[in-house]
């Protein structure tokens, strides 16, 4: 059990300095994610220009894995269209849940999340923001998801 696999430098950096953190002005869709067992809570706000994610920010409190995952996700999906964001969701989902195999090269920095799969209890921490994004993109109004 190698903690360095889980807490890679990229993860620690995005936890300490989360990108796209805070309130988003002019958001036109948002969703809330809760992990009631942990007490983690995430609010994701998205400004869509047609199909394109023009801007995205998150607020809330969570562990290093959930904070870093949300931070990395916002960087990765900004500028993508809805379909592209959903494709990325599927790739990250596979990365977190499939037992092995090299990360998809197109994941870039998100590949740092691959250490999480050695820690099954923490997969839900990494996936909370992604489920929340899916909910936000699926509805034009506020949605709430839970990973428990």
């Amino acid at each position, binding site marked *: *059990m190698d*903690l360095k696999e*889980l*807490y890679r430098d990229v993860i*620690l950096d995005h936890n*300490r300095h989360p990108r796209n953190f805070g309130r988003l002005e002019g958001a036109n869709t948002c969703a809330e994610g809760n992990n009631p*067992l*942990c*007490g*983690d*809570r995430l609010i994701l706000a998205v400004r869509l220009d047609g199909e394109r994610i023009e801007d995205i920010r998150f607020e809330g*409190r*969570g*562990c*290093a*894995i959930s*904070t870093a995952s949300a931070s990395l996700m916002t960087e990765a999906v900004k500028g993508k269209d809805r379909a592209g964001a959903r494709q990325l969701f599927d790739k990250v989902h596979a990365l977190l849940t499939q037992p092995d195999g090299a990360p998809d090269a197109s994941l870039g920095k998100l590949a740092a999340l691959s250490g999480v799969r050695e*820690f099954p*209890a*923490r997969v839900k*921490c990494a996936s909370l923001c992604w489920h929340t994004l899916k909910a936000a993109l699926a509805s034009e109004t506020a949605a709430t998801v839970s990973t428990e």
Partner: protein
Amino acid sequence: MVANLSLDKAPPPLDVEAVRRDFPIFATQVHGHPLVYLDSAASSQRVLPVLRAVEQYETHSHANVHRGVHALSQAATAAFEGARERVRRFINAASVKEIIFVRGTTEAINLVAQSYARPRFKAGDEILITALEHHANIVPWQMVCEQTGASLRVAPINRRGEVPFDEFLSRLGPRTRLVALAHVSNALGTVLPVKRMVEAAHAHGAVVLIDGAQAVPHSRVDVRALGADFYAFSGHKMYAPTGIGVLYGREELLAAMPPWQGGGDMILTVSFEKTTYNELPAKFEAGTPNISAAAMDYLEGLGIDAVAAHEQQLLELATAELARLPDIELIGTAAHKAAVLSFTMKGVHAHDLGTILDAEGVAVRTGHHCAMPVMTFFGVPATARASFGCYNTEEDVRRLVSALRRAREVFA
């Protein structure tokens, strides 16, 4: 574990190495380290005499209780009723009719909520709890309030995690019908002065339920000395199996309550026109129960005062050691505490702490501990919690401290 012990003389010290040999789990390695188990407040480990009693029963003498005239059923019934008498002595109840076997503390509280409170309470009545209750001692009362129109009042806690007595008193009044209190807080370790609180509640004519899940395994509990009307606790937090717990209730209260769950064993006669109910305690025991008493024998064999003194020493040591770590904040610093330490590390979420400690073989609970209002009060989403039992050692405290230093390195 409970601080306000009044002992005539100090109990003989606990031989903790001998105790550990009675718990087979300590042969287990976790991630290559000997196990340090600091999660007894969630569920304690199982002691050999309990494991042997369960195996003996399941292998050689299992049958349904109160059902047959054959030898096995008679033996099972005798063991079951013997366990009831064992519980009666353990908590000093007046009669075995006052000992109701349930699945656990949660079911015991729900039984009182649905069978005592729901038929009696109405709009204008009040149920008083404290701000440090476990969800199991909040939600059943909220359900009764929705069902009856009664209202829920909450005695607040202070920054140390204590319930100031005057704040409690000021919320008691002629409308207070029932007071539900934790004996020991699971999230913070605070020991409530339940005897004084019971006296004050009785002075207003309220009945009192005490959630004793965190007290019974760690201190001597005498339900009559406390004046409790109802007292609930669980087997799996006192070295016994899951799925068995006890509701103590004063006989006159239980006798006047309707059955809660219907089924076998709780009836005298059944026809499609009318069913008559069995006497206490069977009236509240529908279905086939779980059976075991060895844990109480074991605890009394160790000497519950010796266990309490041992755990109190570990609490003092762990409190002092955590205070020396710069980034640790202890949540819950009541004057009277059980051996439970809830804490946060600056800049490190409780879950990350839990994972890093686990990698070092140290098992703690992380999260809100089924006490979200407590977390909200202290402004934290979650804490890490180390809780001690009779088998923990000073070495366990040192391993906890060194694992916390490791966490600090990872999140440097």
